[in-house]
């Protein structure tokens, strides 16, 4: 490989040598200089629109755009001259002049990149006040609320939706001062091709995009003496919740999270990982059946509701390929309200099931009409990692100092296989562990499938079980999902089993996870840190296969019979149907 050329330049008087092709912003960082940005989001939105990152380059007429313009040999850059600072202040003033100023009642107060800049520049009054663009709040969908009075047109959300996910439910519309980010014909997100993956929320620097808040419902249930309020927590939540309390990214806070939930007044705290184990039992069985009959292959996982909505809207003709398994938390909700309620003699009508999820599409999923059994909703409320953190803060819980708790029995002991559900490749790895054991008829020792781990968008591998080759594919992010679906559609798919997660990187990077600033996302691989946390939980688990879980064995023995049984179908499986892409 040819050695990469080096470029030497001067930034604020400091000489520095960096690789050719480095941006001025990145070079400045290497020189220890922090340049403010707003519209920049690494690999998602690199447009240079907001102009906050402008710097002076000797010999150039206007300012340079440091976030995207590359270094040149001998370049002399100044990042903090009075002219640069004054221009940045004026730009900031202009942005704020067209922005809501009700920071006190904004969900992003304290975690807003615009607010942070306003504080930094000590903006005390608006020098250029004037007309503000008017928008109607869109809160029709069960998952996302858009308040574009807070939009600063950075278009990071568009980058996430259109360029990363290749959905393009939102785009820039209109022109000039009136331009804004909107949907086709300014419809609600509910009525267009939005999948509720929530990547736009993660990308938004302000409060223009947020999840639909469900904490009020949960507080109300907790207050109601007639309700038995039970929580279940998804695998990815424990790898990220700590971030909201200042802990390093990827800290495993399982124990503290359980204690905290108990302190909030939840009657029981269960582990969705157990639901994941159940999903594996059913899904592995379903796969083996389809594989042996060579029917509806490749089979595709169905745990990601954003992905399911995507499939229903874009590939209605291929819905047969989806596993009929409900997602883990829905399965788990159904089991709690049937098996568990029966066993512990609780009136299932009194149970209020709260799922704590890294996902906002789950809010939509739990509201789908088919997600109920005998008129009992599987899950009553979904709150995100962020919402849980907010509840804990409101309750004065000093999270960092909590003692570790453990999940409640009998539904609390999950396997390592359940834990890795929260990252791309995890569902596939967990499923293959059980499929292999089942087909081979013995407990295999080699259970780490490295080929499906890591952050790559599409991972392909072949596993050999009982002399048979099973080709598997793991895709995360909807752009990659589309690639796979096109392969299937065109008859080019030579694989049998596919895992798809809507969010790039899987649930650890879900739309309900703590929002990381552009700066952090530039400097740290958030996905890897959170995923590593889950793999380490798996590694440390004594039981790492769903089929070897005593909880599963008991559940099937006492209640469900065997995987794929009539009872299992009633409680744990669902169906899909074509959805119009646009309801307009």
């Amino acid at each position, binding site marked *: 490989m040819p050695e990469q050329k080096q470029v030497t330049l001067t930034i604020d008087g400091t000489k520095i040598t960096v690789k050719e092709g480095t941006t001025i912003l990145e070079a400045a960082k290497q020189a220890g200089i922090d340049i403010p940005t707003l519209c920049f989001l690494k690999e998602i939105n690199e447009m240079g629109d907001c102009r906050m990152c402008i710097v002076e380059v000797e010999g150039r007429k206007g300012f340079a755009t440091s976030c995207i313009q590359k270094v040149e040999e001998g370049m002399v850059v100044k990042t903090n001259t009075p002219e640069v600072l004054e221009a940045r202040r004026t730009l900031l003033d202009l942005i704020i002049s067209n922005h809501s100023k009700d920071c006190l009642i904004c969900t992003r107060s304290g975690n807003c990149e615009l607010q942070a800049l306003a504080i930094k520049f000590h903006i005390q009054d608006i020098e250029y006040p004037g007309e503000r663009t008017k928008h109607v709040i869109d809160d029709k969908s069960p998952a996302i609320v858009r308040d574009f009075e807070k939009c600063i047109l950075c278009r990071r959300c568009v980058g996430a939706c259109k360029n990363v996910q290749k959905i393009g*439910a939102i785009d820039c*519309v209109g022109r000039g001062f009136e331009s804004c980010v909107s949907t086709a014909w300014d419809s609600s997100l509910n009525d267009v091709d939005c999948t509720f993956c929530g990547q736009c929320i993660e990308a938004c620097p302000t409060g223009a995009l947020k999840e639909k808040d469900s904490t009020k419902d949960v507080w109300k249930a907790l207050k109601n003496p007639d309700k038995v309020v039970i929580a279940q927590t998804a695998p990815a939540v424990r790898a990220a919740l700590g971030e909201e309390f200042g802990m390093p990214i990827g800290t495993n806070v399982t124990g503290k999270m359980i204690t905290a939930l108990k302190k909030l007044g939840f009657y029981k705290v269960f582990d969705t990982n157990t639901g994941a184990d159940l999903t594996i039992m059913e899904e592995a069985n379903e796969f083996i059946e389809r594989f042996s009959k060579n029917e509806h292959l490749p089979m595709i996982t169905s745990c990601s509701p954003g992905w399911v909505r995507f499939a229903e809207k874009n590939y209605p003709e291929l819905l047969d390929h989806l596993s009929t398994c409900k997602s883990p938390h829905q399965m788990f909700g159904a089991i709690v309200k049937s098996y568990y309620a029966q066993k512990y003699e609780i009136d299932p009508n009194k149970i209020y099931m709260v799922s704590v999820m890294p996902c906002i599409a789950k809010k939509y999923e739990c509201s789908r009409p088919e997600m109920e059994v005998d008129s009992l909703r599987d899950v009553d409320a979904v709150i995100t990692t962020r919402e849980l953190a907010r509840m804990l803060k409101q309750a004065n819980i000093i999270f960092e100092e909590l003692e570790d708790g453990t999940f409640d029995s009998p539904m609390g002991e999950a396997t390592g296989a359940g834990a890795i559900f929260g990252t791309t490749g995890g569902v596939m790895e967990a499923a293959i562990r059980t499929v292999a054991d089942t087909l081979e008829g013995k407990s295999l020792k080699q259970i780490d499938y490295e080929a499906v781990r890591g952050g790559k968008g599409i991972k392909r591998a072949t596993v050999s079980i009982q002399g048979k080759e099973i080709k598997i594919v793991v895709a995360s992010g909807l752009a990659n999902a589309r690639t796979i679906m096109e392969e299937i559609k065109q008859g080019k798919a030579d694989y049998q089993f596919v895992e798809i997660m809507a969010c790039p990187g899987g649930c650890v990077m879900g739309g309900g996870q703590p929002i990381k600033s552009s700066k952090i996302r530039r400097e740290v691989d958030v996905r890897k840190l959170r995923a590593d946390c889950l793999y380490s939980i798996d590694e440390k688990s004594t039981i790492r296969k769903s089929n070897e879980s005593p909880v599963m064995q008991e559940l099937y023995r006492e209640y469900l019979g065997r995987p794929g049984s009539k009872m299992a179908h009633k409680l744990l499986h669902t169906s899909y149907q074509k959805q119009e892409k646009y309801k307009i």
Partner: protein
Amino acid sequence: MEENCKNCMEQKLKKEMEEILQVYQPEKDNLIQILNEVQEKYGYIPKLAQMQIADYLKIPLAEVYGVITFYSRFTLQPKGKYNISVCLGTACFVKGSQAILDRLKSKLQIEEGQTTPDGKFSIDSTRCVGACGLAPVFTVNNEVYGRATVKTLDEVIEKYKNREE
């Protein structure tokens, strides 16, 4: 009955759109060309046509909408039978075209970009139709009226008002 009729209209539009589209390669850079043709044909870009275009070019509908709302030539509402367009290019502005636009708005009781309730007139302004020698200028559909005054405007409006269907 009405439902049926709506269906027929949609079918007709769909077929016509297919005819328009088949001339073009399904490549994104044809979007503006196609929109120009549809605008020309229908006087606006119907929603169904937008969906068909998005589908054909494999681009998101929101992007199609974004492009339509960016270019002032494209409209989402049908224009009036007679679209009166006042030139606000500098040459015309300096010669008083703003007064003509103001008069037009008050006379027809509509704003720029709007159509009269009877669908007969719509108003917009344009930047230079290129007839600067005739400034100030307004056009009715493709007919150019040069060296215009408020009085000639009034006469022209009357003329079209009285024109038989």
